[in-house]
């Protein structure tokens, strides 16, 4: 009985849906506020993201006549579910509620599902903008998933373990991993930009070229679920980065402060760049980021 209640609290409140959504919403607001202030504007108030969610959930969701409505409804549900599971497995501070021994690989897979959901959503919505957006999302995923996975596995291979909690505990004793594998850290940080949909690699959602990209035909409740996914991403992905490379944090306060640093870094990089074309972005990843990840990966295999 206590076990079930504990599990439900962990799944829904801390560090499950409610906590991740709240922290993710605050981080998203911080990104927008820093962006506004650096562009000489004032920026939205702190409750803007939550008000947007309430507004989206109260509107009607229109499904185009000629599409497969079932797939269109399932795509956002898949992406939301995978992110909630990833959030629940992530160690916050140094304890993790649902962590187990192989959760590095499982988290990598779960965090790739939102991108796939976008590809499916773009294709099934029968609009030319959706088709172009989903093909762009597919190309950029090919570009960044490889260095992303290689950098994450670098750390795992060094410790001969695939459990994030073990990685965090090791870093609390021996120092964070970005000192040991700086190239993998840089490669991983650059891969975060297209994963979160930030410039200079946000070509799949370029609003001046293809209106909404894969999400053009979504509205109302379904778009609201995609927005919840976006907010959760702003918590889970910096948390993953901090756990792998930046020490993890002995208590939740230190952990959240380090996540804040990652969020600020992403914001500043987003502001000072225009948008790369999709072929230029793809070439960038293969030319500059993949070699960095490969060098550190080979280093971790050879020199234990």
């Amino acid at each position, binding site marked *: 009985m206590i076990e079930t209640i504990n599990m439900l609290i962990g799944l829904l409140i801390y560090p499950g849906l409610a906590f991740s959504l709240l922290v993710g919403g605050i981080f998203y607001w911080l990104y927008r506020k820093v962006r506004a202030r650096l562009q*000489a504007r004032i920026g939205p108030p702190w409750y803007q993201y939550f008000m947007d969610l309430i507004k989206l959930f109260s509107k009607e969701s229109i499904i185009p006549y000629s599409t497969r409505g079932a797939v269109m409804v399932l795509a956002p549900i898949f992406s939301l579910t995978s992110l909630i599971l990833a959030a629940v497995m992530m160690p916050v501070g140094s304890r993790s509620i649902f962590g187990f021994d192989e959760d590095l690989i499982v988290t990598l897979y779960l965090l790739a599902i939102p991108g796939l959901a976008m590809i499916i959503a773009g294709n099934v919505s029968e609009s030319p903008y959706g088709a172009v957006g989903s093909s762009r999302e597919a190309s950029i995923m090919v570009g960044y998933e490889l260095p992303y996975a290689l950098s994450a596995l670098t750390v795992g291979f060094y410790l001969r373990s695939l459990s994030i909690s073990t990685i965090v505990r090791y870093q609390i004793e021996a120092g964070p991993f970005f000192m040991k594998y700086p190239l993998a850290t840089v490669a991983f940080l650059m891969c975060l930009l297209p994963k979160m949909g930030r410039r200079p690699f946000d070509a799949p959602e370029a609003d001046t070229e293809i209106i909404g990209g894969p999400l053009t035909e979504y509205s109302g409740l379904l778009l609201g679920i995609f927005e919840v996914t976006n907010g959760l991403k702003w918590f889970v992905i910096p948390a993953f980065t901090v756990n792998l490379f930046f020490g993890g944090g002995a208590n939740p306060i230190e952990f959240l402060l380090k996540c804040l640093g990652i969020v600020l870094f992403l914001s500043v990089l987003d502001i000072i760049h225009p948008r790369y074309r999709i072929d230029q972005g793809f070439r960038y990843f293969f030319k500059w980021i993949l070699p960095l990840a490969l060098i550190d990966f080979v280093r971790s295999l050879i020199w234990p």
Partner: protein
Amino acid sequence: MSTVLPIGPFHPALKEAAFIKLEVDGEKVVGGDFKVGYMHRGIEELATRKTYHSNIFLFERVCGICNTVHSTCYTQTVEALMGIEPPERAKYIRTIVFEAERIQSHLLWFGVGMHEIGYDTAYMYMWREREHALEILESICGKRVNFGINTIGGVRRDITPEKERLIKTKLDILERTIGKIGKILVEDKVLEARVKGVGILPKEEARRLCVVGPTARGSGLNMDTRRDDPYAAYPNIDFEVPVEEGGDVLSRTLVRLRELAQSVKIIRQATANLPKGPVASESLPLPTVGEAFGRVEAHRGELVYYLRSNGTNFPERVKVRTPSVVNNNSILPMVVGETIADVPIILASIDPCFACTDRVTVLDTRKNVEKTFTLSELRGRRGR
């Protein structure tokens, strides 16, 4: 197998409504079609029912960005028809307002161009500097758009010494900004990857399509109505006409950047040499029967007005040929062969103003005949 990707009538890349139908194959554009007509308001017909003086305020509203250009060209054409000459001070004030609006229009274009390639930060900074140009205009004319500074025979407001001091302060700020924009454009590698070598319009093609303005000057054609056919105070002012040979989006950007610097120079000379005297001439005869023809260098190219009078206070026919009508012909040749991601910036680089473009033309492909409908014929068709 090509899909059709419509750009417009509602699209974030367009500032006004037009329909550009692109046929794409993957990410590459292989063909297209271009349709206008969404912003037709019947201004030329309405102008025949209002007096010459009221039409000054009507023609300002043809375009949202180049207001005083239309008003100045119309006023000069009417003055040519009536045979009166405005005083020198009025000509200088017209030039100052004209060039201040050119600064405002080019800074707006820079902001929009940066937004099309995703560089929102530069967009915000350029529109912040644009406020200085708008404050110059607000102090001289009283409004930020649709100024109404012209009247037949001169201008309606004068420039006091206090306003001259304000203009000088703002011009210093604008000069610093223009230098900063130049540096931002040059030192940014991602920007260069997006605009260099994109949307090339070769010189012969530009001459064949008869493009005007910065679109032509970016492809190597050296034409500028301010120098070739001077009007207002331009015969007494010394300025250069920038020409680039590249023909791509970067050349057009550099042409507009240098035109900004030249505008600041022109305003400085005009304010320094402002002659004393009245600002409007006192006598206004009725126009004689005849025709008149006037042209100015608008922000997007050469603007031409034709006016025909039958001796009354109402014009018989006013015809407006805006530069966007000819510049829009060059969109499709430039876009075919490029990727979808480049279409917004190529479209923005010719600075299209679709509100100025609309004329209704009917093409009958079965009989190979082309006919333009006037408003009365359209009204007859609707049965009213």
